[in-house]
């Protein structure tokens, strides 16, 4: 099915608009990734309203390219300023910055870009061959299985983020309830609209996402201070010999890409965890003459290949099952839904050309990453000098105009502001925001499959346990919950005993 998808999608992909927007998306992703505090998620959110009037494959190509570019862009500020542009690059600074301090910033940046691209292509191969296989397996799923899957998606995101899984679940429940506002499609009743006709179709996804993430991030950035400070950024050009250097780390590159893919496929894990895991494994397997933490090339290769391969892998459960692996994947999934394409086996059966187009856009984005990354690094480093006093109002204005552009509705702007207040308040008290968005995105799927399951069931809620696949998924959820509560405490106690024993 993979080759069928690619050949079906070629006609949709091979247009100047799609290829052009993919390249533009990669470029914008690099810029957004470079700026500390933004990240690929913010880039996708800000651009989402603008691409809704563009053909679906072109739009998804641009958003995915932002994801790919943003996953790499953070390495530049990590290497030059010791400030990761995104959490994904937090592990890159461990060896990237020391390498730059030794006068090898060009090599470090070149290695980061090259490793990101190769890792991303590895993730792309897994995506192209893995997603159709998983979608085919999911054909056996009925409403109880899909309901259990949505619970798995919510559970993974809720327990992985912060130290309090309970807070994650509370945020997820909020998202599920927000998704119930509007007209109930089964009973044709108005739910929680307060007799406001503008809520008849519920909340639009974009004001919620923009409000919760973008507005709250702006407030947090203002709280951080230093708004008028201009960072002192050195002038650096990446070295093409980075490719030759990369060849000297073939095993590390393949291993780290595989680790990134593994964590990327797991809902809730994501690029940051994969980068640190790959770094830890690379360090454990270091040769005697390699000193990780002091500017070792292998450190950069490990982290950047892992976090970019995770970007491709995270799309596997997102497209095949409709279970987003992280917040960025949730927004990409939301974009697909807004275009009228519902992720899952049906997408592969009925819209194989769209799937193939997206695969090709992802591969192209990783190729564009190398070209644009090497050519644009001096310009990207200049962007780092942009002061927050100018950047933050620009983000605010883009958020407002992007949201307004959806339906030319000022009401959407007030919704965005309301969710911005909610998002900042919850964030201030340590609640994760990603589960809210995933709850909103998965909510309609969760409810529809729950009600269908109840309709077909003669044993009430026992139907979720009586069906084998659903029972297996629920068992996985229980294992995740046990690990995140009891298991981690036991493991931390064992680690503490070992450390104090030495």
């Amino acid at each position, binding site marked *: 099915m993979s080759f069928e998808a690619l050949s079906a999608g070629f006609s949709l992909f091979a247009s100047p608009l799609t290829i052009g927007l993919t390249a533009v998306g990669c470029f914008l992703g690099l810029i957004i990734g470079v700026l500390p505090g933004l990240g690929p998620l913010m880039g996708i959110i800000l651009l989402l309203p603008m691409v809704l009037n563009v053909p679906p494959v072109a739009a998804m190509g641009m958003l995915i390219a932002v994801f790919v570019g943003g996953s790499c862009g953070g390495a530049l500020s990590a290497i030059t300023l010791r400030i990761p542009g995104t959490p994904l690059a937090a592990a890159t600074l461990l060896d990237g910055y020391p390498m730059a301090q030794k006068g090898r910033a060009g090599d470090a940046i070149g290695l980061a870009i090259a490793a990101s691209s190769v890792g991303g292509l590895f993730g792309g191969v897994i995506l192209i061959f893995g997603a159709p296989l998983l979608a085919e397996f999911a054909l056996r799923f009925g409403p109880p299985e899909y309901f259990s899957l949505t619970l798995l998606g919510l559970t993974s995101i809720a327990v992985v983020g912060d130290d309090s899984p309970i807070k994650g679940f509370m945020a997820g429940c909020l998202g599920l309830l927000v998704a119930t506002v509007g007209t109930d499609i089964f*009973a044709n009743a108005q739910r929680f609209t307060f007799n406001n006709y503008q809520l008849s179709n519920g909340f639009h996804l974009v004001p919620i996402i923009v409000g919760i993430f973008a507005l709250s991030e702006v407030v947090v950035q203002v709280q951080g*201070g230093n708004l008028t400070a201009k960072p002192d950024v050195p002038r650096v050009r990446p070295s093409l010999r980075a490719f030759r250097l990369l060849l000297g780390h073939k095993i590390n590159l393949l291993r780290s890409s595989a680790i990134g893919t593994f964590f990327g496929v797991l809902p809730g894990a994501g690029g940051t965890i994969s980068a640190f895991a790959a770094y830890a494994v690379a360090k454990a397997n270091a040769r005697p003459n390699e000193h990780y933490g002091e500017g070792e090339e292998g450190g950069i290769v490990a982290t950047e290949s892992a976090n970019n391969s995770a970007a491709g892998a995270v799309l596997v459960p997102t497209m095949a099952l409709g279970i987003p692996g992280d917040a960025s994947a949730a927004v990409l999934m939301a974009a697909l839904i807004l275009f009228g394409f519902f992720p899952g086996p049906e997408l592969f059966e009925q819209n194989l050309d769209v799937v193939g187009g997206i695969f090709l856009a992802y591969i192209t984005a990783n190729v564009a990453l190398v070209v644009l990354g090497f050519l644009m690094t001096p310009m990207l480093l200049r962007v780092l000098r942009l002061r927050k006093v100018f950047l933050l109002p620009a983000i605010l204005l883009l958020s407002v*105009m992007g949201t307004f552009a959806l339906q030319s509705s000022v009401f959407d702007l007030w919704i965005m502001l309301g969710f911005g207040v909610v998002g900042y308040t919850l964030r201030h008290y340590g609640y994760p925001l990603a589960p809210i968005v995933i709850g909103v995105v998965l909510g309609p799927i969760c409810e529809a499959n729950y009600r269908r399951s109840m309709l077909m069931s003669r044993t009430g809620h026992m139907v979720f346990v009586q069906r084998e696949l659903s029972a297996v998924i629920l068992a996985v959820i229980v294992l995740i919950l046990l690990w995140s509560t009891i298991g981690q405490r036991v493991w931390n106690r064992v680690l503490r005993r070992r450390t104090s024993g030495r």
Partner: protein
Amino acid sequence: MKRNISHQIDWIPTLFFLAVAGIVFYLSATSLTTQGAASGTAITNAAMYPRLVARVLVVLVVLHVLVTFGTLWKQKEATVRDVRATDEHRGKIEKKNGVLATAGRQIAVSSLVFVAYLYLLPLLGYLVATHLFVLAVVLTLGMRDVTRAVLFAVVLTFACSLVFEGVFNVRLPRGVFGIALSF
């Protein structure tokens, strides 16, 4: 040892979540019942699923409060030891409080400006309202050079207009003055 603020009871979010659940139960009992959509089968009962999620949410809130109380109780003994640590870091805390006070002012003023912008946008139109909004926010966030601030507001406003109206064909608000760039 610092006290972890996330382990103190967060009343505002707790009450917020309870309020959301309360709204679900209240409207299920009133509005949905009036519409005849609060009982029956899984198809006709539009309140079934929201009520279930709201119940789960209430249970989670109760669990959260219990866990927080338990953690605070354990930390009671640590409170006495905390005092000396606070004294030692007083200088840093005062400086941090100064920065936070400035940021708090900036956030409060910017928020008011933002609310005013949303209110005035349909009245004054995009071009007028946005120039004022961007200028006000840039000055609030600490830009002292007024000329640069004005220039930035003009460039950003026109750039956004070019992108949204010129490229994406979005009709931005004209307001009572009916001013807009023509593309």
